């Protein structure tokens, strides 16, 4: 027994160690080379499908590097062996070119590859000239487009003058973005080696081709795909598309007192100042796009305002009116027809905000004192205060803002002007105004100067952010001069500091009824940490401090800020939730860690990682468009956002040599010929084999 066992054990060991070492290469590994990148995918709204999809089995095209427009002409006019897959640089990725490729059709152009060669790139935005063109404020119900932006008129007056609107086009071919240099080299090298010579003989050669698999399940529009998804027509039902949904994050400056019978009484006398901004961004390609300038600056400012107010007004006691409170709301899915804010307004309208589970009285629109919406602050030095009509409130606010902005004491070099009228920016406020144009809504927005709005290039270069990594306490307010040595005055952090200080001071004045005299301003270090977390790595001090101790560190990538769908990564809303919670919460030294388990009490890691229990006020609301709640909603009405995202099985790309037809045909014909000949020959032989092997007995005489 024993020796046998031993032998068996030895064999087993040998197998294990050697199977580990054995490297066996299938032929296909020599044929194919995977290419990493991000794919464009399909989104649908109530009437259209946008984005792109490959064919069911994957689209194959011959690589062709497009350096100048002439190359494109060549592909479109005289393709030697279509279909082709043009490698396009960003500066050629224009609406005109793409539409021409689209017209050429999948027979000529089967794949489009966008390579990350940003030299010569001046602007790159695929959003419409008028973002959320069909869901904004409308003068009267009849017109379908928003009154706040004129897409047909002068592009210079639109909110995204560089936008190509490609994000809202439907392409018959997949578009694949290759960011990594080594992958781009692979492609270019393959192109040079196999394709880029003797174009006449393309049809006769094996050419370097790319196969992109990005097949999208959904089609036509949200109505159809939602219907098909909900209709169980066989055993294994299949999902075609999912509605875009995320989570709005809100937090109050002061904890609201819990009231039991929430369903009956509206929060009668409570008055809320809503400070809002948007959480999400979007881009054409899956998992890319940070929306640094487009939406992150606003979020940074809101965060700092909240934090500063929390420090300046620690308790309601300091207020002129104790019933007042500030509600900070961060809306998700605003890039897609204001999903978050539409739902927020819808909930308020139906007294469903906050959700009964919070045991706090519902807030109706009557409780709102005014709404200060922080839009896209592309230029943090020149800000406009937008209002529909000039109201005393607006004037007063403007004057207060300007007082602090202009005050030599702080020398914030910020210029705030009023802008009254229908030309208001595409921000969350439009949802409120759309519900009731008379709502007291003020929008802080700057003249649009973002050339990369809603694109993969709206990143930290776009906002010229460099992480100072001062590793000092960022949770306190800073004195005016404090951080001058760390940041130069033009740095993003300083700009954010200025604006948020101004807003915070103004709100302080409004809330407390007395001017702000202190020398403390918002802390640019907080902005520094904030941007580092949201633009470079989730594994950052601020997020660490805002999460519970010894919770796993975030990934090295920045959080994805595309709204995505249910079950998608909602990390941005999650981080925002914790961060707001941390920055707005009140420490509870009395409470021990054990009792500090369920909300509103939360045990944060805190600045130095040694946990502390804090009383938090933040919460989520569901950011799912009401269109998906209302039964038999008219998808074409355009009342609410109807955006859905198609499902897909995999997104992948690989390059290989595509054999020429000639090669294939010759191989096949040779095979067939061999087959037939052998058949005939062997038939003849086997039918008359006795003749052939006549003297059989002789041979096996032995």
């Amino acid at each position, binding site marked *: 027994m024993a020796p046998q066992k031993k032998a068996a054990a030895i064999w087993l060991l040998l197998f294990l160690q050697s199977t580990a070492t054995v490297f066996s*290469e299938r032929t296909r590994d020599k044929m194919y080379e995977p290419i990493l990148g991000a794919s464009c995918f399909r989104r649908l709204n109530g009437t259209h499908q946008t984005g792109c999809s490959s064919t069911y089995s994957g689209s194959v095209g011959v690589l062709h590097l497009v350096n100048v427009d002439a190359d494109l002409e060549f592909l479109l006019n005289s393709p030697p062996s279509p279909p082709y897959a043009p490698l396009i640089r960003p500066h050629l990725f224009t609406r005109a070119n793409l539409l021409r490729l689209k017209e050429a059709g999948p027979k000529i152009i089967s794949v489009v590859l966008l390579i990350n060669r940003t030299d010569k790139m001046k602007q790159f935005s695929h959003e419409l000239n008028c973002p959320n063109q069909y869901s904004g404020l409308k003068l009267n119900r009849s017109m379908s487009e928003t009154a706040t932006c004129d897409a047909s008129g002068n592009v210079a007056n639109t909110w995204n003058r560089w936008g190509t609107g490609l994000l809202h086009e439907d392409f018959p071919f997949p578009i694949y973005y290759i960011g990594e240099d080594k992958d781009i080299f692979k492609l270019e090298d393959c192109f040079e080696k196999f394709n880029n010579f003797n174009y006449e003989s393309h049809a006769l050669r094996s050419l370097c081709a790319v196969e992109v698999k990005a097949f999208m399940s959904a089609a036509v529009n949200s109505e159809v795909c939602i219907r098909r998804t909900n209709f169980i027509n066989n055993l294994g039902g299949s999902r075609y598309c999912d509605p875009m949904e995320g989570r709005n994050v809100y937090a109050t400056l002061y904890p609201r007192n819990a009231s039991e019978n929430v369903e009956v009484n509206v929060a009668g006398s409570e008055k809320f100042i809503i400070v809002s901004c948007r959480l999400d961004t979007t881009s054409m390609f899956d998992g890319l796009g940070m929306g640094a300038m487009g939406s992150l600056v606003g979020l940074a400012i809101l965060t700092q305002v909240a934090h500063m107010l929390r420090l300046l007004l620690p308790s309601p006691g300091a207020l002129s009116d104790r019933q007042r409170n500030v509600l900070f709301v961060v809306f998700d899915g605003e890039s897609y027809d204001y999903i978050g804010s539409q739902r927020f307004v819808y909930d308020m309208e139906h007294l469903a905000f906050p959700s009964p589970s919070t045991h706090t009285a519902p807030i109706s629109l009557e409780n709102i004192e005014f709404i200060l919406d922080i839009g896209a602050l592309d230029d943090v030095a020149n800000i406009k205060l937008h209002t529909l009509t000039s109201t005393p409130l607006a004037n007063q606010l403007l004057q207060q803002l300007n007082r602090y902005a202009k005050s030599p004491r702080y020398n914030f070099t910020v210029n705030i002007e009023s802008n009254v009228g229908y030309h208001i920016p595409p921000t969350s406020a439009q949802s409120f105004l759309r519900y009731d144009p008379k709502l007291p809504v003020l929008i802080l927005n700057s003249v649009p100067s973002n050339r990369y709005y809603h694109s993969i290039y709206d990143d930290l270069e776009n906002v010229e952010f460099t992480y100072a990594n001062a590793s000092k306490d960022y949770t306190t307010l800073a004195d005016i001069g404090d951080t001058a040595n760390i940041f130069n005055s033009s740095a993003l952090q300083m700009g954010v500091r200025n604006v948020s200080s101004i807003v915070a001071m103004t709100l302080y004045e409004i809330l407390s009824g007395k001017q702000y005299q202190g020398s403390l301003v918002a802390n640019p270090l907080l902005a520094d940490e904030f941007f580092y977390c949201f633009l470079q790595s989730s594994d950052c001090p601020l997020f660490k401090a805002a999460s519970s101790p010894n919770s796993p560190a975030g990934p090295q990538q920045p959080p994805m800020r595309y709204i995505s769908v249910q079950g998608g990564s909602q990390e941005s809303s999650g981080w925002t939730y914790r961060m707001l919670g941390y920055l707005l919460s009140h420490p509870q030294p009395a409470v021990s860690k054990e009792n500090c388990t369920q909300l509103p009490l939360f045990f944060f890691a805190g600045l130095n990682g040694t946990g502390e229990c804090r009383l938090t006020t933040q919460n989520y609301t569901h950011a799912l468009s009401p269109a998906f709640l209302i039964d038999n909603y008219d998808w074409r009405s355009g009342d609410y956002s109807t955006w859905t995202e198609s499902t897909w099985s995999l997104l992948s790309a690989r390059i290989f040599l595509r054999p020429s037809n000639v090669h294939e045909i010759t191989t096949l014909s040779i095979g067939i010929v061999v087959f037939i000949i052998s058949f005939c020959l062997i038939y003849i032989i086997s039918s008359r084999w*006795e003749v052939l092997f006549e003297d059989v007995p002789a041979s096996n005489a032995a």
Partner: protein
Amino acid sequence: MDATSATPPDADGSLSGATERLERPPKRQQQQQQQQQRTNYGTNNADATDGAVLTVPSVVIRESGSRPSRLNAGGNDGGHSSGSGPGPSQHDIEEEQGLKYGAQHVIKLFVPVSLCMLVVVATINSISFYNSTDVYLLYTPFHEQSPEPSVKFWNALANSLILMSVVVVMTILLIVLYKKRCYRVIHGWLILSSFMLLFIFTYLYLEELLRAYNIPMDYPTAVLIMWNFGVAGMMAIHWQGPLRLQQGYLIFVAALMALVFIKYLPEWTAWAVLAAISIWDLIAVLSPRGPLRILVETAQERNEQIFPALIYSSTVIYTYMGTHYTPEETLPTATATATSSPSFSNSTTTTRATQNSLASPEPAAGPSSSSTRPGNTRTNQQRQQDNPSAAEEEAAGFTQEWSANLSDRVARRQIEVQSTQSANGRSNEYRTVTAPDSTQQPEAQEERGIKLGLGDFIFYSVLVGKASSYGDWTTTIACFVAILIGLCLTLLLLAIWRKALPALPISITFGLIFCFATSAVVKPFMENLSAKQVFI
């Protein structure tokens, strides 16, 4: 011809001449034609005669060789068929005959087995649905989620133990029912199980097939197809239909079952179950107190003809004979034998009828009265030979759901061949039957059909399918060859021992060995070679 093997054929040759003159000539010509169609080297005369002479004696060898032995056998041990030796010489001859039937029937089984495996492998490689286990059976509570191989191992072991215990329980239940003669229940379950396979699993299969190729289809069409397919299948399997159709349906059903196993059994559990099943098969069939053995013996005591439901057999002879002699009586017989029929519920009587129908021809048929008595014993023996399969069929009765299906597959897994005696019995009657015999010679071979339980089909296919699900074709081919060889050996043993044998152990053992060896050792070697285009 060399001297050693010369003598017996000569002796037969003379005999054969006689018999030939009696009624062979038409058949012989027809035999020639067949040879011309089949083999292309039958043209010139020498060969033709050769072939014909060779075929006819091959009938007659049995006559001369085994009739006395049969008599003895009939006398000595009331037909306990286990080759109880008359003279050694005769024994040898019998063995040769056994081998001879083997040689033909091995192929008769290779084709369907290969077809079944082909269906499964093709499905596995084209429809990813059957490739991924996400839903689990009730009987495999451990899902092998943990990465730890040791944990997986224990999970697999536990799962397979549970499954096996279910199987055992069902089989014992089956014995009880069978002893209690609850044929109605048994048959009800039998119909139900095949109904499930033919409708529900086929529905699933169709759905996944269409989905895999993204082909739209409307419900009217789908329902019509399902309805037609299912009903035709029920008719062919449980009632009467063309033999080919029935066989095709049986193969398809087996393939479906195998696919279901592959789909719903966790990775390691599948392998464990394969091993366990083959061991269980060994025990159940061979051990003296093994349940299947008990079934067989009860069946023999009752002397019953039992229907081969859902068993793959190439034989239609009972039907033929029954119908030929006593049509009205043998309607049940026919159904009861060639295909399992509802009318089996009144089993005993019908089987009696069968007996009459089988025995009655003898006096009329036999060239000599001496052949009649043997004839009777023969038929009995033959019936006893059939019983194993019969018993297994009863097992089929139990299938309602998963376990049931499993159990009956397991219970039905057994090979069974008519002994030479019964074969001769038939060949004897043959002589008297002047049936329009365009297909008689093949028939003559088909009748002493080897029966292979669908369970064998299923588990062979599970093995090959599992192997192919790793995307390496060499492994698949290795498993395929190994299983076929195992089947060959089993049939060889069958021909030698003349007793019901379990078909799984050898094949599955070979299959498992080759599967793992190939995927672990041979695959890297071959891939290194074929990557460098080195041929060995």
